[in-house]
Structure formats: C-alpha cells, structure tokens
C-alpha cells in the first residue's frame, strides 16, 4: 500500500471510522470486499480497471490534486490506486489500517463530482469507483460518524435531520403565518390532491432555513402555481444514504418520495435549490428502484424559475444591483445540463453577471458535495485544504467586480460559505430564491 498522503490523516479522530475499524478482522474485510466485487459489480468495474493505462491525464481535473500542489495521492487515478486496485489485486486481503485509509480517501477526498470523467480519454468513471469503495466501507461499518448519523436519521424518520412527524406541518404553518403578514391570502397547501406540482425540499430547510420555504411560498403564490406540499413522510428529497452507499435506504427514501407524489396525483415534482437531492432523484435513486428515468417529471428549482420567468408568470420589479457571480453546481450542471437555464435566470434577475472561470460543465466543485461536508467537523480542514483552487477562482471573480456569489445548491452553499470564510474572500452567498424574492413584483 502506498504511504498515506498526509500525516494528519492518521491523526483525525472519527468515532464512526475508528470504532468500526477496531471491530474488523481480516476475514471479515476479505469476505465483504469479495462479495461486493463478485455480487454487486460487473463489467464496468472490470473494464475500467483493465482499460486505465495509468497515464495520469485525469489528474488536473481534480480540485484536490490542484489544491495540494499536485500531490499524486489526490489525483483521481491516485485515489483509485490507493483503494480499489489494491483491494482487487490482493483479492480482498487488506489490513484494517488500509480500510481506514480507504474510508478517508473515498469519503473525504472525492466529491464524486465527475469532473475527471471529462478529462480521461476513456471516460473512466472514477466517481463510480469511489462509490464502490464507499459501498465496501458501508458494509464493513466504518462510515464516518456524522454522515452515518444522517443516514440513520433517514432510516428512522425518512428525513435527513430527525425532523419529527409533527414538526414538519408545524413549520409549514408557521411559515404560512409569517408570510400572511406580508401577503394575507397566501397559503401553503398541504396534501392537496391533484395539484399540478408537489414541492419537495431537503430536511435542513425546515430545520434551519425555514425562510426558504417562506420565499418559495411567495414565489408560488405570486406566479399563481397550483401546488402542494405533502404532510407525510416523503416530503424530504434529500439522500445521504446515497453517499454512504447504503443503497437499500436510498431506495426506500426515493420510493417514499415518488409514492408521495403518486398518492397526491400531482403532475410533477418541483425541488428546491439542491444538487445532491437532484442527483438522487434523477440519477441514482430512481435507477436503484429500476426506473431508467424517474417515474415523475422532476424539475429542479433552476428550471422552475426559468419557466416562470420565461412565461412571464413572475415579473421583476427592479433587477438586483450588486454584481453577482454564478457557481455551477456539479450535480445539476454536469449532472443535469442546467447551466444555460441558470444563466438565463441570473441575467433575468440581476443587472450584472460576472462569469467565474472555468464554468458550466467545467466548473470546480465546491468540495462539499458527494457527502464530504456531511462527514462533519473532523474533516472540515480536508475541505478547506482540498479546495484552494476554488478560493482562487472565486477571488478572481471578485477581482472582476463580483460582490455576491449565487449558488443554487444547498451543499454548495454551505461548502462555499466555509471556503469564503476560511480564505477571507468576502463574497456574500445567496440562493436564486433569495434574489427572486427580493426583486419580484409582489401584490402591494
């Protein structure tokens, strides 16, 4: 096995990993690795591993590699070498210490952002390989504690944040009342059968950012949308189980989400500004359930705002003045092609849009995605050190005059918040909905 990339990896304490490792035996490791490789993978794993010509061309795709002064341990193929190649080569006979390192690499040194797939001449999907590693880590019970906690929460409450059954409608009612002070006839319709749209959010919205639900309600109301939110489990579209490779729970979550939409007989699901939830609903969870494409029309907030603005259903009273720069979230841009629509929205609501470079499908990840931010405080510095290039990219946009950073993704939002603070970049960070709410025409 290669030397660990950084000494501090050895010092990080994470109870999820460390306690899990203390329970491992070599036999258990071997049987789990081999069962994943034999029973859960197939031609993709085999072909990717055998086709990779060890050319290193994927390296410069990765923000971790670039941010660590091109330390090869952080190159995409370098991470593969330190994990799955070795597991395959040794037929699963690796040590607990190796597994510890594999847990750290797969969970905190790769955002599954798939930028490297755009750099490898063969299109080798390293994010997929890292997910196979996480699957092994999950089955061995060594997933980092914080993200495992959210997966447990999903399992128990069907939402990410331990939001209890009654807290959810309570929060919606509370936001409805708040908003009625501004627009008296505004409603947040609950359980309305046959509405056009079911609006779903991630659990951190009711938990910490209830004003986002308020803003969404105002936008829906002004645009005259026939919408509803579910009162039952299934309202949360988020999915950390996807990132712990706990596919069974991922499937339960997505089934609950789709079945809720089905029960309410809505035409489509509109999602809040979140990237990973979109990936789960559109790309991974649906496939695990056997849907080649989602059984419902899934509309990410960017696309929803785009439609509203284009159809003139919301009007802009006065465009937003401070110059903005736009972060393209991997999961909805590289994962959903929403970059041009995001630009349409940005230009429709803001006076000045300053492009950060690289952008669109080639944007750098915020380093929070892929569940990395959800591994919590023990690995915060891994994110800060791992994304110096993002700081440089943002700083450049700021130099060109940007004052506000728009990030239409919850994960990106939190991740960029940390980056902006740590590197003292001084950009204010907003969602599209913050700005739309501010600049739209509202009933007097």
């Amino acid at each position: 096995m290669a030397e660990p990339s950084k000494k501090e990896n050895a010092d990080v304490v994470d109870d999820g990993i460390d306690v899990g490792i203390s329970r491992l035996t070599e036999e258990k490791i071997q049987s789990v690795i081999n069962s994943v490789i034999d029973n859960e993978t197939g031609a993709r794993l085999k072909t990717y591993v055998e086709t990779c010509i060890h050319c290193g061309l994927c390296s410069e795709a990765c923000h971790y590699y670039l941010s660590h002064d091109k330390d090869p341990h952080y190159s995409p193929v370098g991470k593969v070498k330190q994990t799955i190649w070795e597991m395959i080569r040794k037929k699963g006979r690796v040590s607990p210490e190796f597994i510890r390192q594999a847990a750290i690499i797969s969970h905190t040194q790769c955002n599954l952002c798939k930028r490297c797939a755009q750099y490898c001449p063969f299109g080798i999907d390293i994010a997929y390989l890292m997910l196979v590693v996480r699957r092994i880590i999950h089955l061995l019970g060594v997933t980092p504690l914080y993200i495992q906690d959210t997966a447990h929460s999903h399992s128990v409450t069907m939402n990410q944040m331990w939001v209890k059954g009654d807290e959810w409608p309570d929060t919606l009612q509370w936001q409805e009342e708040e908003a009625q002070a501004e627009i008296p006839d505004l409603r947040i319709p609950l359980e309305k059968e046959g509405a056009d749209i079911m609006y779903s959010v991630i659990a951190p919205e009711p938990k910490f950012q209830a004003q986002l639900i308020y803003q969404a309600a105002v936008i829906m109301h002004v645009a005259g949308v026939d919408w509803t939110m579910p009162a039952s489990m299934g309202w949360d579209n988020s999915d950390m189980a996807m990132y712990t490779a706990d596919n069974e729970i991922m499937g339960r979550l997505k089934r609950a989400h789709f079945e809720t939409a089905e029960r309410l007989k809505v035409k489509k699901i509109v999602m809040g500004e979140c990237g990973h939830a979109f990936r789960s609903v559109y790309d991974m969870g649906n496939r695990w359930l056997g849907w080649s494409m989602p059984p419902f029309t899934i509309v990410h907030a960017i696309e929803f705002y785009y439609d509203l603005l284009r159809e003139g259903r919301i009007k802009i009273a006065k465009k937003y003045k401070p110059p903005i720069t736009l972060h393209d979230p991997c999961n909805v841009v590289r994962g959903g092609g929403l970059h041009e629509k995001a630009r349409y929205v940005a230009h429709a609501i803001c006076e000045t849009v300053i492009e950060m470079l690289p952008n669109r499908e080639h944007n750098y990840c915020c380093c929070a995605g892929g569940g990395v931010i959800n591994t919590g405080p023990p690995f915060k510095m891994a994110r800060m050190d791992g994304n110096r290039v993002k700081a440089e990219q943002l700083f450049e946009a700021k130099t060109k005059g940007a004052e506000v950073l728009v990030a239409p993704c919850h994960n990106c939002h939190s991740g960029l918040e940390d980056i902006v603070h740590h590197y003292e970049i001084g950009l204010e960070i907003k969602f599209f909905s913050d700005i739309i709410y501010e600049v739209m025409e509202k009933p007097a």
Partner: protein
Amino acid sequence: MHSFYNFVSGPLAWIAFLLFFGGSIFRIVRMLMLVAQKESFIFTYMSWRYSLRSIFHWIVPFATVNWRRQPVLTVVTFAFHICLLAAPLFLLSHVILWDEAFGISWWTLPDTLADVMTIIVILGAVFFLVRRVTRPEVRFVTSASDFVILAIVSAPFVTGFLAYHQWFAYPLMMGLHVLAGDIMLAAIPFTRLSHMLFSPFTRAYMGSEFGKVRHARDW
C-alpha cells in the same frame, strides 16, 4: 537462422493472429455478456448519437479541453497512435507478404514515409517512458506492467527499423522483428494494450450518460 525466421513468420505468426483475433473477440464478447448478466441497464442508456459524439471529440486532436491543455502530449499521442497503426498496415513489404500469401493487397506507403513513421513511434515511446518516470502523478500509478507494455509495443518498430536499414545482423533482426510483431499482436487482448479494444466502449458509455441523461458534454 533460416529456420528461426520460418518458424516466427510461419506457425508462430498463425498463432499470434489467432490469439489476436480470437482473443479480441473473446474479450469483447465476454465483456458484453457480463454487461448482459449483471448490468444490463447499461444497454438502455447507450445512444449511438451521444456515443459517436463523444468518441468523435476524443479522437480529434485538440477537440477536448484536456487535449488543449496538454498540447505537446496531444501531438505526441496522436502521432504515435496514427503511425503505430498505419505504418505496419500500409508498409510496402508487409503488403507484399499478404499478396504473396493470400493474393490480397491494398494501398502502400512510400518506404521513406514509413521509415519516418517508425521513428515517430520510437520517439513517442521514449516520450511516454520519460513522462512515466519524471511526472509524479504518472510515476505514482506506474507498475512494472506499464514498462512491459511499452517495451512490447516499441520492440517491433525498433527491430523493424534496424532490419530495414540493415544495421547489425540483418537476418537475425528480421527474425526478431517478426517475433516482436507476433508478441505484440498476441499481447493486445491480454494486457492493458486492450485499451485498444475497450476504449470505444467506455467512452461511448460515458458519452451516452453525459449526453442522454445528464444533458452535458463530456469533453
């Protein structure tokens, strides 16, 4: 010496061709069967349009972001691979062999051009070797097999070049040249040289995923 030459260009060449064609078909069929058995969903995502779109971008020099970022490597890679395929296929003396053996023939390259192409392949191999040992990100993921396949690929060209210019012992070189060619052919399906067989598939799958599902470009 004569019998050595006859052996490598006779029975051994047959075996090499058999291993090359048989092995290639076997490997591809086995991969497809594995897809059908365990990941048949892959077929549902494949799209001709997006597969070809992606492959096209990656086989045109400088058509992708990463090719543009690495101009020297790009020029070398393309020159190397084009010469590697074209020189042996269109070399006059090879075509004559085919004609004598089976009565089939096709276009040929002027000998001087083929000679230059051979040198390009050899220099390309040297470039890859140097890159492998000097660039940390490449060295980190290098194993012994990477040097072996580089040797397998360059040997027919080095020996062919020496034989053509009649340096050293011509008959020996000629025999070694044919032997090296046999080894390379036979090795393609069974070493990482198989990227020649598999890369269209991996690229096509990623191209289809990016184009059809993700509505994004993968280059």
